[in-house]
C-alpha cells in the first residue's frame, strides 16, 4: 500500500498541486470533494493510473465515491492489479 500511495502522491503533487508542501497532502485529504481534482484532472489521473499500472477503470468508478482520497485511489489500483 505505502509504495502505491507514495507514487500516486508524487504524481498528484506535481500535476495538480504545484507549490504545495508534500506533508500537507495525506491519505485522507479530500481530492475531488475538496476542489483539488476537477473532472478533467480526475480523467488525467485515471489515464495515468491505467497506463502506469496496466489496469482499466469502468466509467462509474471515475467518481468521488471511488477516488476521493489517496487512500481510496491506492486501494482501487491495488485491487485491480491483484485481480489481473
Amino acid at each position: 500500500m505505502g509504495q502505491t500511495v507514495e507514487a500516486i502522491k508524487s504524481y498528484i503533487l506535481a500535476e495538480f498541486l504545484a507549490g504545495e508542501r508534500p506533508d500537507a497532502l495525506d491519505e485522507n485529504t479530500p481530492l475531488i470533494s475538496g476542489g483539488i481534482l476537477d473532472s478533467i484532472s480526475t480523467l488525467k489521473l485515471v489515464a495515468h493510473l491505467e497506463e502506469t499500472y496496466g489496469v482499466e477503470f469502468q466509467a462509474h468508478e471515475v467518481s468521488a465515491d471511488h477516488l476521493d482520497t489517496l487512500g481510496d485511489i491506492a486501494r482501487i489500483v491495488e485491487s485491480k492489479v491483484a485481480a489481473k
Partner: protein
Amino acid sequence: MSRRLEGLLEASATRHPDRTAVVDPSTGRSVSYAEFAALSAGVAEALRAAGVGPGDRVGVSGKSIATLAAIFGAMRAGAAYVPVDVSAPAARSAAILADCAVRAVVAPRELSAKLAAELGIPDEPRDPLPALAGLGPQLVLTAGPGAGAPADLGGEDRNLAYVLYTSGSTGKPKGVMHTHASALAFVDWCAEAFRPTPEDRFSSHAPFHFDLSILDIYVPLMHGSTLVLIPDELGKQPTGLAALIAEERISVWYSTPSILTLLVEFGRLERYEFPALRIVNFAGEVFPVGNLRRLQASWSHPRYLNLYGPTETNVCTFCEVPGRVPDERSDPYPIGVPCSGDRCRVVDGTTDVARGEEGELVVAGGSVMVGYWNDPAKTDAVFFEQHGDRWYRTGDVVREDESGAYVFLGRRDRMIKRRGYRIEPGEIEAALHRHPEVVEAAVLGRTDAAGKVVITAHLACRTEPLSVIALKRWCSENLPLYMIPDRFSFHDALPKTSTDKVDYQMLKGLA
C-alpha cells in the same frame, strides 16, 4: 397572440402525441409528447396553486425529466424560469434566487433545504406533482424569497421566458433576461439550419443554467424529435458518454469543444459506431484545430457547426466547418457570419473599423437579451443606440476575414472562458478576499501551448503562505467548481501601478 416557448411543446403534443419527447438514460425512463405535456400542465397547476402567475419567476434545479416538466410548467403558468447550478455552493444559488425574487422554487429535496436555510425562509416542501415520482431525483416545491411580492408586475416581465445568471466582475452574478421572442429568434434559425425531423435524437449535454441548453430543449421539442437527457455526472465521463451517444443513437450533438476533446482523448470512440450522428454543434470556446481534426478521424460523416454568441445574444454567428480539416491548417475556424436574424458590426467605440481591422464585435437583432435583471446600470453599460438599433457590446475582439466571416481574437476585458463557462476574475478575487488570511488577491487566466486555460491566483497573505490544498477547499466551498484556480502564487505584496492599482500587466509577465 405572440408565440411562446411552451407553445412549441403543446403543438408537438397535438401533432405527435405518441412519439417519445424525452429520454433519461440514467433512469431508463422516457415520456411521450402527450405524457410530457400533461406533466408540464400538472406542474403549472401546482405552481398556480402556490401563487405563481404571469410576471413571476420560478427557480428550478436539477437535470431530469421532472426538472424539464418544471421548466415548462413555470412558463405555462406565465412565469419565467431561473435555472440554478446543483453543484454550485448553495450560498451562490440562494443569492441568485434572492436577486430575482423568485416566487417559488422547484428543486431536489436536499438542495431546496439548503436554499431555504441560506435564504432564511421556512422550509416547507410540497410535492409539486405525484406523477413526477421516478422521473429523476424527487423534486419539491417551496416558496421563494419573492413569495410575498404583489402578483403580476405586468409589462415586460410578462414576456420573460428565463433568466440565466453568468459570472459578474464585481463578484455578484448577473441575470441575463431573455424573452420568448429572443429565444425563438434563435430556435427558429436552428430549425432552418438543422432541418430536424421527428426521427432526430438530440443530445442535452449542458446543464440547464448554461445557455447551450436553449438549443437542446426547444429545438427537438418543436419538431417532434426526441431529447436525450445526459445527467451532469455522466456528462463528464468520456467512456460512458461515448457509449451513450452510440446506444442512444444521438443524431444531433451539442457541447463545448472541451467535452468533444475529452471524448477524443479518453472516450475510446473506436469501440463504437455512430451511424445516426449527422450534426455536431460546438460553442462556448475556441476549438483548437488539432483536437477537431482528431475528432473527425473518428467521426468523419457528420456536419460540423461552430456556433458563437454570449449568453446575452443567444447564438448570433455560426460557421460551418469542413468535415475534414485540412492537414496544413493551424488556425481555429472563424466564428462565422450572422444568424438568428441578427446584425453584427466591428467597432472601435461606436465607429466602424475598416474592413479587416480589429475591433469589438457588437450585435443587434431579435435574439439579443432585454437586459440584466434589476441592474439598469450594467445594462446601459453594454448597449448603445445607433442607426435606430440597440447594439450589444460583446467585449470580444474580432476581425472580418476575406470571406466576410468574423475571426475571434480575444477579449477586451479580463474575462476568462473555461470549458465554455464565463469566469470573471473579479468573482474569484471576491471569494479569495473573503478568506480571513488573504490581504490581496489578483486572478489571471492564460492559455498554455496545448490550448488549455490556466487560472492563476496571485495572493498576499497576512502571515505565511497558505496551503494550496486549504485554498482549493476554500474555493470549492465558495465558488462553482469551474472557477477554482489551477495555481496559486504567493507574494509579500502584489505589484502596483503608479496609481496604486494592482499591476496586472506585471503579474501577467510573472505567469
